[in-house]
């Protein structure tokens, strides 16, 4: 068979490089902190939007925080994303103890009544979605307590 007939019409290969490059934030909840105004950022920023220095430093967040808002997602659409086996999912905005509000999923929920605004949470390391290239991604999520 000619090599030309083996050409893929729409070759899209999901590289692992991005997940590797972002391992600090995604696996260790590393953001950045401005040494000048002490403002902390997550996801990491590479320039402080307050004082505009580029000399920001890596800062590892404690992973503890409080739910600012939460919803229970039971919509089948998310099965398309590779999260179909995790329904219902609790998607929350979480105010970390160090300041930033981030988006995160609350997992290992035994009692849904406890997943409310104001509840304390802490970060855990969990499996994420499966990449198109077949490998699993690993990311931060949150549990109550």
């Amino acid at each position: 068979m000619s090599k030309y007939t083996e050409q893929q019409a729409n070759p899209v290969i999901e590289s692992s490089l991005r997940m590797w490059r972002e391992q600090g934030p995604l696996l260790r909840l590393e953001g950045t902190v401005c040494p000048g105004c002490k403002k902390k950022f997550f996801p990491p920023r590479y320039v402080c939007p307050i004082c505009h220095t580029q000399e920001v430093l890596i800062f590892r967040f404690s992973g503890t925080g409080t739910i600012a808002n939460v919803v229970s997602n039971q919509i089948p659409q998310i099965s398309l994303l590779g999260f179909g086996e995790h329904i219902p999912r609790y998607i929350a905005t979480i105010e970390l103890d160090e300041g930033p509000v981030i988006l995160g999923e609350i997992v290992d929920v035994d009692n849904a009544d406890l997943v409310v605004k104001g509840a304390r949470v802490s970060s855990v390391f969990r499996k994420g979605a499966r990449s198109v290239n077949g490998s699993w991604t690993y990311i931060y999520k949150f549990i109550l307590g």
Partner: protein
Amino acid sequence: MKERVVVLGSHALPKPGNNKIDKSFKQLVVEACYGAIEDAGISPLDIEAASFSYFGEGEIGHGGIGPTLVDALGLAPIPSYTNSANCASAHIAFLNGCDMVQSKRYKYVLVCGFDKHTDLISLENYMISSDSMYDYSLGMSHIDYLLLSAEYFKQYNISPAVQQAAMVRFAQLMRENAYCHPIASMYGQPVPTSTQIENMFFSGNVLSAGEGASAVVLALESIAEDTKNPKVYVTGTGHVSTSQYAAHRYHPELLYSDQVRNYSSNFAEAIPLELACKKAYEEAGLTSDDIGILGVYDQAVNHFLSIEASGICQKGQAPQFIIDGKGDLDGVCAINTDGGNIARGHAGGGASMYQIIEISRQLQGRAEGKQINSSVQYGMSTVPGGFYSTAASVILSKV
């Protein structure tokens, strides 16, 4: 003082809430652009530059969209610019077109937004409207942002009864407007009863995603002395870019200038859009009291946030505004007279141009659906893109 821009001609393809599997994106763009050129009463050879908008190369599977479309339109070698700003893309192309004619480098500028999402089946193309690394890769997408918008009702302590009544009435209003509008995807479709709408997901307040294209031809007022159509002017514009990461909405200190860093902020307010509207009002020398027709991005509760961001009513009051009929065709300020994203349909990269075209034609007295009162002199089109990461506002006038 900048010379005003005139919308010389416009054309929107029908049923943007439906897919057009028999047509390529080139065909959609050619049809919309030549419709707008004909409507403007000029020759294609008069077009000196173009601005295009879409949802990006990742959605249509085609790069170099500027030259591709200029060539498809038979307009090469005119210069072209492209942008993709999520659902706000077409407004940004429109603003870009205004800047192009106001620079006086180009007399006639063609602006077109389009959407084609059935050539590449990307399963979940909504990833392009979120931060793909820190929202999407964690499994959060559009649908979660919709659900988080429930924060709006909590913040303003809106009772469940008022929530339900407002959502149902808005969904009905969009379908009523679309029923008479031949461009709308729900044109001629009977309006469901309140009970039927109550049983729909989000009480019928979900946009109808589809494919289409919309185009306008712009020129300066001094160039467009003798126009084929009644003149409609761009009298004010506003454009704000903030952050694609949704949780940044809780951090106004990171996103806004010193004047507004003290805003409280969360998912219950559309502050970027409020800023864009404020800029547009300042440029036009108008207030919200002057606006008689409003185009908003309708989906979930975004229409309530957008009505409030435009200043048409106070924060937390939009649901009652809708229940009271103040957004009806004969109300205080007619909202989405073509049925909006919900019933007209939402062809992403061109969607918000449909709003501009609808308001332009209403002000010109040549509405394709029901005509608003001829005493209305000013209209405003607003749109957020990527969960308010981009926000834009355009004020149109017939005086």
